[in-house]
């Protein structure tokens, strides 16, 4: 159970592209932040970044865009892509490794922490990240949006998904 919790906590997001598919990715990168005095959390695709706001399409509710004021965001992280081409294979393999400890009897007391530690480390490093504002400034953020030029006026924003 412990191992599953750790692995699930560090598992790879399905919406990110793999390194081999990154060159074909035509969507925005994913922005993860706390806003409104840290009372709200959101992870969503960057749709547009203007001088004073960012528009995100949340991964949980991809039918309604959310606009967040620049001043409401102190810090954030941008998920660029996965760092592995076969995340399912690696996650499954790592999870099964932890389960082998069940068959180790008393030695499982020792093998489980080792298995969990190594596999949790492997799984946690499955994503390439950037930090805002340390790694990327507000002015640079727009190039990671779906529409780096801003949402064209001819597009009905409610139809973006």
């Amino acid at each position, binding site marked *: 159970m412990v191992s599953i919790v750790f692995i699930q906590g560090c598992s790879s997001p399905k919406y990110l592209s793999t390194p081999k598919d990154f060159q074909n990715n035509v969507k925005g990168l994913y922005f993860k932040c706390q806003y409104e005095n840290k009372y709200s959390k959101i992870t969503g695709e960057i749709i547009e970044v203007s001088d004073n706001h960012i528009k995100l399409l949340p991964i949980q509710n991809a039918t309604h865009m959310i606009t967040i004021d620049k001043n409401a965001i102190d810090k954030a992280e941008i998920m660029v892509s996965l760092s592995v081409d076969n995340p399912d294979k*690696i996650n499954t393999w790592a999870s099964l490794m932890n389960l082998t400890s069940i068959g180790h009897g008393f030695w499982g007391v020792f*093998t489980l922490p080792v298995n969990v530690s190594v596999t949790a480390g492997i799984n946690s490093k499955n994503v390439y990240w950037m930090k805002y504002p340390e790694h990327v400034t507000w002015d640079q953020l727009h190039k990671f949006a*779906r529409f780096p030029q801003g949402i064209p006026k001819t597009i009905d924003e409610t139809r973006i998904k």
Partner: protein
Amino acid sequence: MTRATKYLILTITILLFIGFIIYSCGKLYIKQDFRQAYRGFNDSIHQNLYDQAFFKVHLKNGEVSLLRDWKLNASKDSILGNGKLFDFNRTEIREGSMAHNIDDIAIIETNQLDAITSTDKDKISTLAILTGANLIIDIACITNPKACFGSCPTFYTERSHSVHDAKAEGFSSAISPALEKLDMDALNTQTSREDFYLTMKNEAFETHLINEICLTAVPKKRSEFVFQDRMNTFYKARHMVTPKRATINGTSILSQVSKIDDLEFFSFTDKQDLTKKEDIYLDFEGVYGNKQGLVINFRQTLLTTFLLYNGISYMGDEVGDYFAKIETNSAVKKRLGNPFKLLGKIKLYVWNNENESWEFFDELYETGPISKNLIIAPLPKMLSNKGKLKIKIELTKGLWRIDYLGLSAITEAPFATKIYPSEVTAIKGESDGLAKVIKDDDKYLVSFPGNEFNFKFNIPKLKNQDEYELFLSSKGYYLEWIRASWLRDKNISKLEKMLSNDDHTWKELAIEYKAVEQQMEQVFWNSKYSDIQ
């Protein structure tokens, strides 16, 4: 090593573990300049982007074009290339050759793909090393995972390191809390001492939860025998008569069943039908006098172990869900018993001379392949003909090992005393009190693999008798530890068919068991917990 030292080591291990987890949950950060965006065509054309293999052209209408190759047209007012065009929701519109007028282009984007490299190889290498290390520990069970030791609590009356010396195994069929069961076993042990010690071991990869332990002591003369029937009624006997003939399919098995010893009769399962029956015929002579009972000393082969482990492995990673259903859904709980009902009990018949037919008189069932069960099955009435008596035993081929068959004139034992333990000592493991095993309540003594507990019983003083015959009652259940290798065999469809007694599935199981039947005993006895350690 003291308990305090153990706790210290455990605490340090946990802290190191937490620290490592925190450390290992670090992230892979990259710089933002892997992506370049050029506002308008003129900006990009001056950056010499012709050698970029892939680049994206963001159009002013919100569409985006992903080009594998590109060039300017002769009039230098359009980009020509091959690739894909996507709409504003990034749904592919078309693939092939494209032409974009520079006035329609909003931003041109390029990415340095060297920054986004795959780390699969590193991770696979690490996991391969870890797998190798785990395999070394797993190796004992990998040769035949379904034959790994499973036993329920084993009870010993003397110090022994051999599981063959176990006097009893408790509640073997109680594989979940809902199936908790009281099990009484003859210990085949007599005592006239004022104290008696019993050792309980967990020699399997299971968690045992013991609700209640008690002895039943039946006083007797030294020359007498005491037996229990399946209803736990006790009978005394003075003599046991061995059969004159004991045959199966015309072959004598008398030498195997005429003594309580290590020599047993057993047969192998049918090649295609695990439920196929066979009959043992017994002829007794010199049977006179009072009420008679058939004495039988027996245990199971590994067929039920095979079926149980297969059933659990078919559950795969849904084993927790299934066991939760057993607790809450009586229909599921009932279905779980179907395979064992299909295999059937040992059915006993006596020849009725008046009707000239076999008359059914009892049926027996005890789960467990380790310790033998000594049971008596009282005959309904005296059916001997001039001292001759015929008995037929119908049993499933390959399911039972029969050590002894005999007849005994019996009288019901008038006295039996229940004795609860007065002390519980942990030889290996943690024991936090006697109170957990002296009452059928919601308190359980928990025993993990390798644990051993010693129970002391104060035996009442004897009056006009020489000794007590001892029987052990144990109530509880156990939880099988799921072997990692079992998860590979997940097959819910087969499980459902197995529980529904599907003919084809049972035929498959018969073939699978046949392949391992002969080696299974050896692997089973070599794979108990202590041997693997």
